[in-house]
């Protein structure tokens, strides 16, 4: 599937509605605090829906099935979990992106980890929905999980392998299901290329027109929807990076569409 055909429904971002389903959601942690390597983390087979209030976040049992089907080929969780094709995901809530020492992460996710990307409900939701939208050059070759309910269920399950939720400020008790999307109208805006060209002159002080990338990534010839999603992710603070957030915050939806149109077809 190309990014373009993923299209409307796939490209959802936390911009509009914020529906908090579980107000006072407190997940009990299974077992004592675990070290990063998974010591003390529950055995994956033992974790079941014995945490009823987790249902408020999502259906853990369904999440577990999704985990087996969607993620387990590459990731491990639970006691003794090791890195596989992907890094182990014990205590991933509250963890800095790309924090497992020695795991051969992509440059892209390493960069964002340094910028401050931390795994919270919101950032995990966005990453699982569309890995490339959050981390352009990620090595995780996973097409994304489109259905918001599925993601909520999956994250409820993954949460069981993270620390005492109350100890992780971003995660819980505030971990809530954030149901947000970039409305189709926004993705349908046809970019005014000439306006985009003018706006782009702000970008080319740093991003080179010919696509050269040393120290600052290339933004030329991207599929437009991927570009739009990335810019919204900076604007909403989902992608860390003070400079890009600052720049994106004064861009209107139309500006972003115009920039996407221009950079997609830029000729040096």
């Amino acid at each position: 599937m190309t990014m373009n055909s993923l299209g409307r429904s796939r490209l959802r971002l936390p911009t509009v509605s914020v529906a908090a389903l579980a107000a006072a959601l407190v997940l009990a942690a299974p077992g004592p605090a675990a070290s990063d390597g998974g010591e003390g983390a529950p055995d994956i087979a033992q974790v079941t829906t014995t945490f009823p209030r987790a249902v408020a976040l999502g259906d853990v049992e369904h999440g577990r099935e999704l985990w087996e089907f969607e993620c387990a080929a590459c990731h491990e969780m639970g006691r003794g979990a090791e890195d596989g094709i992907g890094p182990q995901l014990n205590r991933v809530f509250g963890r800095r992106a790309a924090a497992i020492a020695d795991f051969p992460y992509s440059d892209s996710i390493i960069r964002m980890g340094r910028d401050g990307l931390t795994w919270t409900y919101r950032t995990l939701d966005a990453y699982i929905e569309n890995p490339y939208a959050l981390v352009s050059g990620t090595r995780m070759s996973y097409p994304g999980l489109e259905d918001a309910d599925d993601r909520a269920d999956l994250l409820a399950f993954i949460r069981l392998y993270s620390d005492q939720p109350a100890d992780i400020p971003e995660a819980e008790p505030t971990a809530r299901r954030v149901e947000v999307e970039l409305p189709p109208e926004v993705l349908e805006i046809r970019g005014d290329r000439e306006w985009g060209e003018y706006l782009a002159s702000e970008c080319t002080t740093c991003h080179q027109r010919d696509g050269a990338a040393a120290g600052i990534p290339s933004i030329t010839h991207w599929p437009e929807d991927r570009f739009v999603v990335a810019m919204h992710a900076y604007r909403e603070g989902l992608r860390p990076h003070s400079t890009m957030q600052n720049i994106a915050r004064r861009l209107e939806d139309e500006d972003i569409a115009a920039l996407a149109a221009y950079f997609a077809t830029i000729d040096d």
Partner: protein
Amino acid sequence: MTIKRRTVLAGMAAGSAVLAAPAVMGAGRPKVVVIGGGSGGATAARYLARDSRGALDVTLVEPTRTYYTCYFSNLYLGGFWDLADLGHSYGTLAARHGINVVHDWAIGVDRDAQTVTLAGGDVLPYDRLVISPGIDFVEDSVPGWSVAAQNRMPHAYKAGSQTELLKAQVENMREGGVFAMVAPPNPYRCPPGPYERISMVAHVLTERNPTARILLVDPKENFSKQGLFEEGWARHYPGMIERIGPDFGGDNVSVDPEAMTVDIDGVVEEVDVCNVIPAQQAGRIAHLAGLTNDAGWAPVLPADMRSRMDDKVFVLGDASAQGDMPKSGFSANSQAKVAANTIRHELLDARLFPARYANTCWSLIATDDGVKVGATYEPTDEKIATVEGFISQTGEDAELRRQTFEESIGWYNGIVADMFT
């Protein structure tokens, strides 16, 4: 004259070809002269020529054949960048964009006749004039120092041979010697520039001459990124740097270049290297053209960098008095694009877009320890005003600082490509 031109502009805005015609078609293509081929001028010339695809006659007047950027010249001092990589030529602007690059000094502007006179005798007519001459120093702002003394006490605040000289002096300083800097009062080009320089000198001395001392004499209470610099100095160069602010007489300084002494509020210090960065004002040609105010800067309209003295003239970069934007290469580059769009609108009826101003300034404190500060800006009635800013934080981890430094290299390559390719 001004009133008549306003009428013409109003006509153009309303789409009146009849009124527009004489101004635009008169002597063939409309002429824009750009004085100064630095951050503001080179960007303006390039955007004017490129975006008008030959419809404008663009002349760039710049005396030097190679522009040495001030940005990264501190990194050259510190041994992190080559001199050759600071230099950029105008070849591509001429060959690719059809800009007439004239290597000469502008020595006069006749704003009534709309002409610029060059030292070589040429007289260039213009429909619009852009000037971006950078800064000149205020005479006697540091008593005892004058441009004639710049070989004994370099300023290195225009890059090139001055930077080379200062680097050689630092590297050859006697063991345990004293490096002094006389920092400038506000406003001046590149607010963090002197402090990045202190960092780079400290880096060199720590490696080559660790018992040397650095004396920073500063007339200002506070300075740009102060917390970040002071944290970095304490960490990387403990005990080496002493800053004498205004509370200890840092605002009452004179120098004696022959004796190599600095007099700080009556206390005379013998020094081995002395970097004097005097108070600054708009480049001389802005004064000669009658575009400056009492403070020595050229006031402009926030919406498009148009001179408040003459609406056919645009002043960019360090020379302009515009409001909140720092005097930086990034700012000058950003302002140039706004002015270029306005000029193309007025002369070629191109679409006019609202101003978008921005700036980010990186500084290197030590190896792989980069920091940055930046903001977006918008025109208000009164000035260019800050919308929202950001700054690196103290206590950031080493990886992030390294990444910030790498980013600055990306920016350097980006901005010089945006000016010269």
